């Protein structure tokens, strides 16, 4: 019970701290808009024939360009939450010199990650609501009720990303150049999951990596339910693999985090970066 209270207290602290930076809060909505959503929409629309995305229909079995971009972006946001909201926030605590006092509290160190994940989920939900509202009003995004059938897949992806956040937090604790690592790894993870294009377009050597990521299946199931796109595999099989990968990624992440913490204690490098 005490750990749950601590997790929510950490989440509250994260939400409060971030809300003090108004421009940063606004940029959680504006940055994806002008860096990805609007350019991707206009780029995709440049291939349209008589207002219809015939090329996308050939590739994916749906001509819903806006939906393709937004539902990919939804899981992309979730991936960003694990990389920046959880793993990199540990680095920020290191920079501000507050990681050592936090580490000395009686709270389990695993709870620190869970608390951050809860705080990041809050901002993730707010930004996605704002982005989807923009999509509906400005870009003509059509939402179908069937998209809610993909909710279990999204929940699985959230759990899997918490596991991956543990793994990343462990790496961030050990390396010195965390910014470049988080930035590039976040981008590659998103691209390999198919946030911007179907993974079948990746070079053959990268496809096995893509199929080992839980988010690949979550995006595919979401697009199948919400857009009626052609699935990569049988959706039942995709669910099975997604659940399996979630069950693996969570303990794997916890194990890596525990090992990183052990190494850090042994080398006395909590304050070094």
């Amino acid at each position: 019970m005490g750990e749950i209270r601590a997790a929510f207290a950490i989440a509250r602290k994260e939400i409060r701290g971030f809300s003090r930076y108004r421009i940063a809060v606004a940029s959680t909505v504006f940055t994806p808009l002008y860096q990805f959503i609007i350019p991707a929409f206009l780029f995709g629309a440049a291939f349209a024939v008589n207002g219809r995305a015939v090329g996308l229909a050939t590739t994916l079995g749906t001509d819903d360009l806006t939906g393709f971009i937004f539902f990919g972006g939804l899981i992309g946001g979730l991936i960003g939450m694990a990389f920046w909201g959880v793993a990199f926030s540990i680095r920020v605590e290191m920079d501000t010199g507050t990681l050592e006092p936090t580490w000395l509290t009686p709270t389990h160190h695993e709870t620190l990650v869970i608390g951050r994940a809860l705080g990041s989920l809050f901002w993730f939900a707010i930004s996605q609501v704002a982005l989807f509202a923009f999509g509906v009003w400005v870009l003509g995004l059509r939402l179908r009720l069937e998209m809610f059938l993909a909710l279990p897949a999204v929940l699985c992806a959230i759990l899997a990303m918490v596991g991956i956040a543990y793994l990343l937090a462990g790496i961030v604790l050990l390396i010195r150049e965390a910014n470049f690592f988080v930035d590039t790894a976040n981008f590659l993870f998103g691209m390999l999951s198919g946030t911007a294009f179907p993974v079948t377009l990746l070079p053959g050597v990268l496809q096995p990596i893509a199929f080992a990521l839980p988010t690949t299946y979550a995006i595919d199931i979401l697009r199948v339910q919400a857009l009626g796109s052609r699935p990569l595999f049988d959706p039942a099989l995709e669910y099975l693999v997604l659940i399996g990968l979630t069950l693996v990624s969570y303990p794997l992440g916890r194990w890596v985090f525990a090992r990183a913490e052990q190494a850090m204690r042994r080398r006395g490098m909590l304050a070094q970066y």
Partner: protein
Amino acid sequence: MSLLAADLRAFFAAALKELRQQRRYPTLFLGQLFWPAILPASWVLMGRAYSGDDPQALVAFAERAGSSNVAVFVFVGYAMYNWLSALLWGAGTALRQEQLRGTLEAVFVTPASRLVPLFGPGVGTLLPMALTFASNLLALRIFFGIFPPVAAVIQAAVIVVLGIPALYAIGALFAASVLRFGEVAPVVQLIRGMFVLACGITFPVAMLPLWAQISAKLMAPTYIVDDLRGVLLRGETVADVAGDIAIVLSLAAVTAILAVAVFGYLERSARRTGMVGRF
């Protein structure tokens, strides 16, 4: 030593300082190898998803973009994007960095012209810029097996060199303007985002509404990107785009004058309010 010669010496010293600082942080160059290769490559794959190799879709794209070669179209756009990134994060934030380190006041009390701290750091952008273009070309060759004709690459290089003053001036204007802001990173993102949306970096300018297309004509990067695509994709020559180059050079002069005026205004204001050390 004449005043001009002394200022020139100070200018080269300021440039050398920037290059030395870059050398001290070699990991920063990793990003200049990674992003120019991977970012455009991912957009080319997006282009493949959107086109589906459907001839009709590719014809529609060619009508709007002037070519159906999506890979070169995207890589040229991203060369400009990376150039703008290096410029805004480097020269564009140079004065702000001096302010953060507490050295801007010391720079201001030297007898060197104010144009030295304003324009000197821009030289530091040239090295990352060259590295970015090289990574771009290499990635285009390795990932997609495309290498434009050598004659076209040489003409593209001429256009880039002639575009340097305009981009340099944008960096100086940005550097002077952001001295007023407390937090500079979101401003960099915003301005870079504006260029991405307005200058046809990832999509053809023809996709924008008319008012945005007219605004795009007031920005030098729009002309530079279009001219580069002209020589690399449409077989145009430097002579064919001479009119655009004249506009780019004129915009460079106007932007540089504006940068000097903004910097002068802020300096006068700083003398009155003592805000140089405050941020």
